[in-house]
Every structure is written in structure tokens, then in C-alpha cells.
């Protein structure tokens, strides 16, 4: 068949796109491949081995930092999702009321300000509180993470809510359901995918954070990302590659689930 004139074609675009995909994945693949290097260099290949995974697994600092990361992310993502769900219920499906714009501005504020500025602000504020109260536990990191996770949890929940009709809840109220019962039996089951998406988004955002954690943490409170940042200043062994690979795997897993949840939403 003779080649038809394709109106969508633009010269060179496919080539550039392919270069982009190649360039996006080449570095990541390199990191993963060298995680399995038998030698102790991240540049010279000396055969396949799992030794760096074992080494990372047996490195107390790495295990400690990982557990701390998971602990902070779990607490921050859970609280952020709960309060974001409440806030989303309070700011959608209504005619504008006084203060609504202010609420939007507040909830999105952590997205508007550069992370380094928030980090500095929290450093100043928390160092004062540390002096006043003498408390220097993980609470500061958890509070900071919760705050910047809220807008991320809020977005998918709000998007889901805006596509939900109020009529079902009104019907529930007509059938003498209390507001709580209507929420539990009607709103929540419908809203569930949005809440789950928000929770996962918040979890990944908290897990990935470097800048704010780096400024807020007290001594001995390294999370996995800040631990890795500290290691970059030293001689790097494939142990970092092994840690990155596991980290990558967890992120991809969460993103895949998230992707399928939000795609399902589109198809409904």
C-alpha cells in the first residue's frame, strides 16, 4: 500500500522521543545493573553477585534508616490522608462560602513554596521548640512530613469527590441515616479509590523527601534518603546501588498500583 500522508507526523519527533525514553532509563538501568556487581567498583564490572544486597541488609545504619523512613511515612501518610479526606469533604460539592478560597490557598500552600524555604522555616521553628520543651524525638519529622503530604493526599480525593453525585447521600439522609452512617455506608465506599490513591501518593512523597528531612532531623535521625545523601560524599560502593535498587522497586510497586487505581477511575 502506498504510504498515506499522515497529518499527525512531525519530522524527527519520534526520534527525539525515543532518545528521551532511552536517556530516562539508561542511568536507572546502570544503577540497577551495578548493584549486582561482584567487584567493589561502580564502574568496572567483575561478575554477578548479591554480596552488596547482603551487605546493605547487614548494615545497621541502613536498616535503621529504612525503618525510620517507613515509620515516618506510615504515620505522616495516614494522618495526612485522614485530615485531607475531611478537608476534601468540607471543600467540595457546595456553593462558594466565605473562607473557601482561603482554605484552598492554605491546603495548597506547601506546594507553592520552594522546599528549601519550608525546610529553613521548620529548622528555625523547631530548634526554638526543642530548646523550650527539651523534646527532640521523631515527632518533628512526622509533623513536617504530615504537613507537606496533605496537599498530595487531598488532590486525588477531591478529584474523586467532585465526580460523585450528592443525590445518593441525600437519599440516605431521607432514609433516616445519620450523617456518620451515610458517610460510612454511602460516601466512603464510593470515595475509597480516591482515598487509597491519596494515601499512596502521600506515602511515596514522604518516603522520597530529602530536603526538609535533612534540615529538620536531629542527630541520629537519618532517613534512608538523608543517609544516602551523606554517603555520596564518601567513596561509593555498589552498596548504594543495592539500596537504590530496592528503593526503586518499592516506588515502582506503589506507582503501578496507583496507576491502575486512577486508570480504573477514568474508565468508570
Amino acid at each position: 500500500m502506498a504510504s498515506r500522508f499522515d497529518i499527525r507526523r512531525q519530522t524527527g519527533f519520534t526520534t527525539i522521543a525515543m532518545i528521551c525514553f532511552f536517556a530516562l532509563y539508561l542511568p536507572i538501568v546502570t544503577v540497577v545493573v551495578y548493584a549486582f556487581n561482584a567487584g567493589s567498583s561502580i564502574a568496572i564490572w567483575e561478575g554477578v553477585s548479591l554480596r552488596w544486597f547482603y551487605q546493605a541488609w547487614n548494615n545497621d545504619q541502613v536498616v535503621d534508616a529504612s525503618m525510620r523512613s517507613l515509620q515516618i511515612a506510615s504515620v505522616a501518610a495516614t494522618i495526612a490522608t485522614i485530615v485531607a479526606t475531611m478537608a476534601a469533604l468540607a471543600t467540595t460539592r457546595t456553593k462558594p462560602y466565605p473562607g473557601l478560597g482561603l482554605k484552598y490557598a492554605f491546603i495548597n500552600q506547601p506546594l507553592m513554596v520552594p522546599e528549601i524555604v519550608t525546610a529553613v522555616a521548620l529548622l528555625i521553628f523547631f530548634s526554638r521548640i526543642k530548646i523550650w520543651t527539651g523534646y527532640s524525638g521523631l515527632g518533628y519529622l512526622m509533623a513536617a512530613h504530615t504537613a507537606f503530604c496533605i496537599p498530595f493526599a487531598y488532590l486525588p480525593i477531591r478529584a474523586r469527590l467532585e465526580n460523585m453525585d450528592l443525590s445518593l447521600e441525600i437519599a440516605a439522609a431521607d432514609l433516616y441515616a445519620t450523617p456518620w452512617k451515610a458517610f460510612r455506608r454511602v460516601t466512603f465506599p464510593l470515595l475509597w479509590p480516591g482515598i487509597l490513591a491519596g494515601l499512596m501518593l502521600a506515602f511515596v512523597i514522604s518516603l522520597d523527601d530529602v530536603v526538609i528531612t535533612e534540615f529538620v532531623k536531629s542527630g541520629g535521625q537519618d532517613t534512608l534518603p538523608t543517609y544516602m545523601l551523606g554517603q555520596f560524599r564518601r567513596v561509593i560502593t555498589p552498596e548504594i546501588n543495592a539500596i537504590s535498587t530496592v528503593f526503586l522497586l518499592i516506588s515502582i510497586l506503589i506507582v503501578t498500583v496507583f496507576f491502575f487505581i486512577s486508570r480504573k477511575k477514568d474508565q468508570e
Partner: protein
Amino acid sequence: MASAEEVAEEAERRDIRDRWLLSAPALIIIFLAATGPLLIVVIYSFLTPGPYGDVVWKFSTDGWLSVVMQRDIFDDTLVFADAHLSIFWRSAKLSFMTTIFTLLFGFPTAYFIATRPTRQRNVWLFLITIPFWTNLLIRTFAIQEVIRNEGIVNTVLIKLGIISQPIQMMFTDFALMVGMTYVYLPLMVLPLYASLEKIDFRLVEAGYDLYANRFQVLRRVIVPLVKPGIIAGSILVFIPALGAYVTPRVLGGTKNMMLGNLIELQFGQGRNWPLGSALSLSLMAIVMVALLFYVRSAGRQGGAHG
């Protein structure tokens, strides 16, 4: 007896009150751990630096003054602080160039994805999303592995006999450029795709019917249609690039500081918290101007099409 109107009014008042109660926890957390501390930064920028970091509670405008000026150590006159201004300038320049490069690479990529059959699109989109959600630190580390002296690029070039000595790319502005373009590319592709996906290709066809060539169609039909996406993507890349901290710290070394690193320095070795606060607020002001510009142009776009 309350009239129906009064009952309705009362119900509405209660509804609004409930809505405030429901949103209160989120608002309080954000106020305590994000917005409130920013106000404290404003206060700190007007105080005097303490000898071991922190501040002394004495009013001073030196923090703000040192953002652009410095006192000459010999005759106490004020001169422009070249060191700070050059870092401001480098940050702005690098962020702007990052925006341009991500646009040059991101536009064809987004266009490619948007013109795939619907089923394939999700796969390509997913391939963009994965690096987007991969930890920034891991991606920066990955770029480092590629451009190091012993990295892939140098190894391949030496094996091919093109160069005999590795090219020093790490710790240069070039490394920062490559790193930031790599890190922020998905942020450009996603909004561009959202705009490109909505293009009505009948308009493109009309362009060809009117004897436009491919480039004219691109410039006169496609680009104007996706302008909102281009602006959104540029803002999404420019703002985090301007405040970048991790990428310049890992790839740039000490000589290639950006604003984020200059700010950190004041809270570390510099021991000048007021100056650090003033620098942070300056960065925030630039970002706010960029956002304002975005909101205005987005509003204009909406008005033109709506």
C-alpha cells in the same frame, strides 16, 4: 415560629460551621508545620546573627542588606555582593536553560505519546511516570554514574578511541544542566501531554488543506493550541529548579552553588541565620512572581477560550 426562610438560613449556617470543623485539622497542621514557620522566617530576617548560629534578639536590617550588598572590610563602604549576585544569576540562568531544554526534549516526547493509539498511550505514559516517582536522589545518583570520569559516557568514548583522557563533566555547570534536565523532564512532559491529548486534529488537517507545511502547522496550529500546557510545564520545571538543592549539591560541587546551597550555607558554616532567612524570602518572592505570571496568563487563556 421560625419561617421557612429562617430555617433554611439556619441550616446553611450550620453547614458552613460543620465544613469549618471538618477542615480544621488539615488547616491547623499546615499552619503549625508550614505556614506559621514561614512568618517566623520574616522575623528572623530582621534580627542579628548569634555567634554560634541562631540569632540575638536585636533588630537589624543587615540580613537583608547582605543579600545584595557587602561591607568592605577596609573602608567600611558598601559594595555590591558579587558572590551572592552571581549565585542568584547562575540559579536563574540554569533554571531558565533547564526549562528550555526540557521543553525542547519534552515537547516531541509528549507529542509522540499523544499521537499513539489510545491503548499504547497508557504504556508510554507509564514509562514517563516511573522516573517521575523515582526518588530524586536516586535519579541524581544515576546521572552521576553516567557522567563520572569512570562513567558510561567516558568509558564508551575512550573505548571507541575518540578521546584518550576522560572528559571532566562532574562538578561543572554542564553536569548541573544535564542533571536538572534529566530530573525535571517528566514534570514538563506530563502537562504537555495533557494539553496535546485534547488537540482536535481536524484543525491540523484544515491547516494542511490551506497549504501549510509541517513546520507551519506545528508553529501556527499545534503550538498555539497547547500554549496552556507549555506555560504550566515551564512553571512546574522553573520553580523547583530555582530552589534546587539536591542536584547541585551532588553534581555541582562547592564551586557551582545554586541558591538552595547558598541558603543552607548560612544555616551551617556561615552561621548567619538572618541572611539565610532573607535569602529564603527573596527566593520565595521570585517564585511568587513566577506563579503570579502563570495565574495571569492561565486566566487570559481561559478567558480567550471560554
